[in-house]
């Protein structure tokens, strides 16, 4: 998250993960004995983006738009329906479970719900050291020493290693989850809504911790959340998802100051600002209606059913295109002819 990290990443464009045309569809089946497919949830429906080494890519969008599915499909917890996930140039989608094993260690996940993601019958020490044992990173008594060390790294008291998850608060449990992810010594961590279950007074602690760890260990993050202010705080770049598609990607300051896609604009304007003076004078774009179902997404631009700029062209699907340096948007407003280059807003 540090400035140097983001600048050097931008300079060298050192790509850790290159996602190409990724799709994940879930079949909807009917029948008891003979399950037949009656439809598909287009959870992730053709997304392409890159994550650079050492950066945080934020992923935002409304509930059900496919953020978690994207994260899980990157990690091969779901195998993609279509598309490639190149990790340091190697396509993970084409590897067998066995071939994946050594790479799995390098890619970890932190979950939203610190309560549900920790085994209640295991001590904190065994929870944290689980990846160490699974991947055979250390042996014998050093395993527990390492667990204690990791507790310290994430701001927990190492003397509490013998306690169980229920003896910790929500924020502390999230720290345990983070320590467990770190135990595998990963390069890349998918943080799936790591702060949304926490109290407001604790969220900043965890955001700061994640940023510190990134600096300390040179980690790369995919940070999934619906809280745009938190995402903007921690991310170098942000990708905005809508109904299985990425509609915009840009540097996080750029995205906030000059959003190009009408959905991004509405999303930003809907975020409440904790200042009554600002709220009193703010112009808000209130979107009509709800997000359509991913079982039967609209043809063409998926946002067209709620977009106030909609015109004839929107029945065709707009592709994600470069609108200025390092800024991509998928909207026909950007370009009504086929010529190259960005048009102004």
């Amino acid at each position: 998250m540090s400035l140097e990290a983001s600048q050097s990443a931008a300079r060298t464009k050192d790509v850790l993960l290159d996602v190409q045309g990724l799709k994940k569809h879930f079949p909807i089946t009917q029948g008891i004995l003979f399950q037949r497919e009656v439809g598909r949830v287009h959870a992730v429906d053709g997304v392409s983006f890159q994550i650079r080494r050492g950066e945080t890519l934020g992923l935002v969008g409304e509930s059900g738009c496919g953020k978690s599915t994207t994260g899980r499909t990157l990690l091969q917890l779901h195998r993609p329906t279509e598309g490639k996930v190149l990790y340091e140039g190697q396509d993970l989608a084409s590897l067998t479970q066995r071939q994946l094993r050594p790479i799995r260690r390098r890619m970890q996940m932190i979950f939203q719900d610190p309560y549900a993601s920790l085994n209640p019958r295991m001590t904190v020490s065994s929870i944290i050291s689980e990846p160490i044992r699974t991947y055979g990173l250390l042996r014998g008594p050093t395993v527990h020493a390492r667990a204690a060390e990791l507790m310290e790294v994430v701001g927990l008291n190492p003397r509490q290693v013998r306690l169980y998850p229920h003896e910790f608060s929500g924020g502390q449990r999230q720290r345990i989850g983070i320590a467990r992810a770190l135990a595998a010594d990963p390069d890349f961590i998918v943080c799936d809504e790591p702060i949304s279950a926490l109290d407001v007074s604790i969220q900043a602690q965890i955001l700061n911790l994640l940023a510190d760890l990134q600096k300390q260990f040179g980690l790369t993050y995919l940070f999934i959340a619906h809280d745009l202010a938190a995402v903007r705080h921690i991310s170098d770049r942000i990708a905005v998802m809508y109904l299985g598609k990425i509609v915009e990607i840009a540097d996080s300051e750029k995205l906030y100051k000059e959003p190009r896609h009408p959905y991004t604009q509405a999303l930003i304007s809907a975020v409440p600002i904790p200042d009554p003076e600002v709220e009193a004078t703010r112009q808000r774009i209130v979107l009509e209606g709800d997000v359509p179902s991913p079982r039967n997404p609209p043809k063409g631009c998926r946002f067209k059913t709620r977009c106030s700029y909609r015109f004839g062209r929107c029945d065709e699907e707009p592709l994600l295109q470069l609108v200025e340096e390092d800024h991509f948007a998928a909207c026909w407003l950007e370009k009504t002819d086929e010529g190259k280059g960005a048009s102004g807003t």
Partner: protein
Amino acid sequence: MKENDQPILSVRDLRVSFATEEGLVRAVDGVSFDVRRGQILGIVGESGSGKSVTNLAIMGLIPMPPGRIDGGRVLFCGKEILGVPEAEKRKLRGDRISMIFQDPMTSLNPFLRISLQLTEVLELHKRISRKKARRHAIAMLDLVGIPDAAERIDDYPHQFSGGMRQRVMIAMSLLCEPELLIADEPTTALDVTIQAQILELLKKIRDELGTSIVFITHDLGVVAGICDETLVMYAGKILEKGSTRSLFASPSQPYTRGLLRSVPRLDLGRKEELTPIRGNPPYLLDRSPGCPFLPRCDFAVDKCGEEFPPRRQVAKNHDVWCWVEMEGSAG
């Protein structure tokens, strides 16, 4: 007018506790506030601070046991409602006071068409014909922005999206045109674009129907956008209360200050690092006589551990409960 000066709701020194296996939890510990007519009052505070219990007590919905009202008064239009018989309470609920719960599915019956659920409320409280009730219900669904209300009224709850169900809930709570609406985190489970719709709707209802609203949330941005006055709760106590503008402009309790400083703001430049509140949320069982925020407070003095501070006025319509007078409150 005399009647309009009287608060629609007055809560005085309300105390509610729960007997749990680990011990007695003082969930609400001496809470007092007023809601004026046509006002939107916000209640903020972390999980477990007693926001919901306060409002369940007002509605007469505390499960007893394990719960117990240990004391206090709740006046609705000047009349005590805390100890009234259940039948009378039931008459108030849904008619003159109604509540929107955080999870719409807890108050909508999944097996019944919403038309039935909506008209039932009206028939019960207003004794009007089913036909008239149906017409009224459709008008209300229309008001809350359900498209094709006349047709959708015969759908089942699961046929609506989360945001629409929440709007159906709001429609249901407004059917009898209550004077007081208690909304317990009505938008927490919703996406921001849908939240924006619901907040606009609640403001419109207040403006057009004059409904007074108690709005519970943990989102300071939502409070800033919709509430005229705000209460800040912590471990069952009110630590600060006042007009939303004054409270945000000069937060005078270290907890309120800490909260406002710890949240990243989308409209300001990005900070290198956030300023969190240290420590962990309070554990309600170990209760000291002093201020519950003490273990996390950077300004504490000896007195803070000995006695809970009395109310201190910092500005017109802005009170704080804190022994320490902070300088340069603004900002």
